[in-house]
């Protein structure tokens, strides 16, 4: 018997083939969702200096909040911070149903998270980086956004809300 040939039991060979097919199926599903349906993950957007991002008058995060770009389209500049108290600025944003909002979130101190409940928006907020995702809000209601990364003793109370009016 040659010592370069690997002996594979027929049952195991079938099992390996099924495993490989499963993998191809998973990879296809993820790829179709990503590139066909556009369900994408955050990409590098912009870099900022966390020491001045909240105070520099040229920085949009010195005046965080909603900006209406055109009817039904908004940019939301959100600042996450642990100091002086764990919060997002602004804490609340109100938009009409059917609006599409691009969130630009950064931190002036430690890492935070930003997850809007019942949507696909969920990302890390890393000081020095800007996290961006665009979400369309069709259904009226209150959507909490909560901090999902440990950021010190107030992590558990850090949240805000998007109010979608009919």
């Amino acid at each position, binding site marked *: 018997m040659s010592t370069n040939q690997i002996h594979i039991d027929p049952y195991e060979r079938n099992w390996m083939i099924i495993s490989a097919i499963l993998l191809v199926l998973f990879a296809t599903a993820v790829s179709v969702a990503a590139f066909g349906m556009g369900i*994408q993950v955050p990409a590098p957007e912009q870099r900022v200096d966390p020491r001045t991002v909240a105070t520099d008058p040229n920085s949009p995060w010195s005046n965080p909040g909603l900006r209406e770009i055109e009817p039904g389209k908004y940019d939301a500049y959100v600042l996450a911070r642990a100091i002086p108290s764990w919060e997002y600025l602004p804490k609340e944003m109100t938009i009409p149903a059917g609006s599409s909002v691009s969130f630009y979130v950064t931190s002036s101190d430690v890492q935070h998270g930003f997850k809007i409940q019942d949507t696909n928006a969920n990302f890390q907020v890393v000081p020095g980086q800007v996290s961006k995702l665009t979400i369309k809000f069709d259904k009226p209601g209150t959507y909490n956004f909560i901090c999902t990364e440990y950021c010190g003793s107030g992590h558990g109370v850090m949240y805000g809300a998007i109010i979608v009016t009919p």
Partner: protein
Amino acid sequence: MKQYQLSTGEKKFIGSHLLVAILALAVGSLFGPLQAFEHAGWDIYPYIKPLIKSYYQGLTVHGVLNALVWTTFFIMGFLTFNVTFGLKRALRNPTLNKVGFWVMVVGVVTAAIPILANQATVLFTFYPPLKANWAFYLGLTLVVVGSWVEGWGLFATYLGWRKENPNERTPFIAFASILTALLWQICTLGVATEILTMLLPWSLGLIENVDPQLARTYFWFTGHPLVYFWLLPAYISWYAMLPKQAGNGKMFSDSLARLSFWIFLVLSTPLGFHHQYVDPGVPPVWKFIHSMLTFGVFFPSMMTAFTVVASLEHAGRKQGGKGALAWIGKLNWSDPSVAAQLLAGILFFFGGIGGLANASYNVNLVLHNTAFIPGHFHLTVATGVTLSFMGISYWLLPYLTGRKLWNPKWAVAQAWTWFVGMIIFSNSMHVLGLLGAPRRVPLGLAPYVPAEWNSRLLQVGVGGAILFVSGALYLTVMLMTALNKEKVAEEVQVPIAESMQDPALTPVWLDRWAPWIYGTLALVVIVYGPQLVDMISNIALTSPGFRVW
């Protein structure tokens, strides 16, 4: 045939690993139920405030001691056993291994001091710019360096054996253990770089600022293969020991077992970006490539599932088991070591399925940093790995000490309570995560918790209570065994499941190290190199440290 004898010194040395590991588990596990009770609305933290200042300090103790100390010490001890017993050869340079062990011990103590003083409440991921006391980073560095040195001691032993036995196949448990130690040496380069180039000098005041995004990237270079460092020792036991214990079974396929270990080595490091799918500073193209490689590592896991179950079936049928599934009942369930590892394997299977969801690039958007994640890794590291290690210790401690296992029925009950408690705990955590509950939050106090989470939060507490009982049972059995006056009649037989096929027929290319190591390093360079070069050349040291706990 008499089995190979370890020297008393070697047994003591391996036993010292177990001692530190179990002490760490004893302290670390105390805090698990406290977190679970908090979720259920029964917060004990205010009552222990003089000792532990907050939920987060407790969570840091829990994560560091259980995920890092218990695992690393148990693993280094178990690997040392496998290499010496497997090769039937004494450690080539025992002083080297001892130095490594003591460096690790000094490291644990050094890191424990600031953690207990609430100077390092940064959780076991210690993401900057949360800034712990320097002793925390120094301690972690020493643990890693100590484990490297112990690894070198194992490599030296292997090379000595290879010189004496140039044409033999490396015995499986020794081969797989050397591979695990090697994987650890490669993957820890990430966290070593993170600490030595940024966090340690920063915490000492030598540099003022760090780059948090680059730090995360270094961290996850190590963070995912760390999972395989935990898991592969359990796999070694499942492949090559458990079938023997479960009913005198044999290992189904020696060559495919080795092949799957090689694939784990090659694929375990170059997929760390799957922990950073939602990081702002990493381009999606790399995230996508890493997600595909993560699916790739699913393949050797499936091979493992097949071989392990086939080997167990061999054991079950040998015991007179019949039918498609009825043979399972014939396995040696009354042996606590068997019960613990079989139950660990069952829950690990579900942990693997959840892991596939996490790994799925954009599916992760609904799971990232939710309670789904701790739900997932309590099935994998806290059950698949930890309950298996407990099972291993049920024969290993009597083997090392010559003392009989105290009250095996309690040990069987320990395995089952862990299984049941973890099902309740982990299932509710998974569901909470899908409902949007974040991880690492004292949910009993969080202001945004909707009423629909409450019943699940209560189940988290119930699961935690059962796990607390199980942990107490384990520690009692271990302590009473270590003190047991009743000795074993003769040395405990080490369970080794021989391969069905003569290992000499295993292809030579499955016993050659160089090509696999070069392949591993090349793949790391290809899928990590470009992005790392980009991030390092554009490094932005702009984050000063914060102590906000």
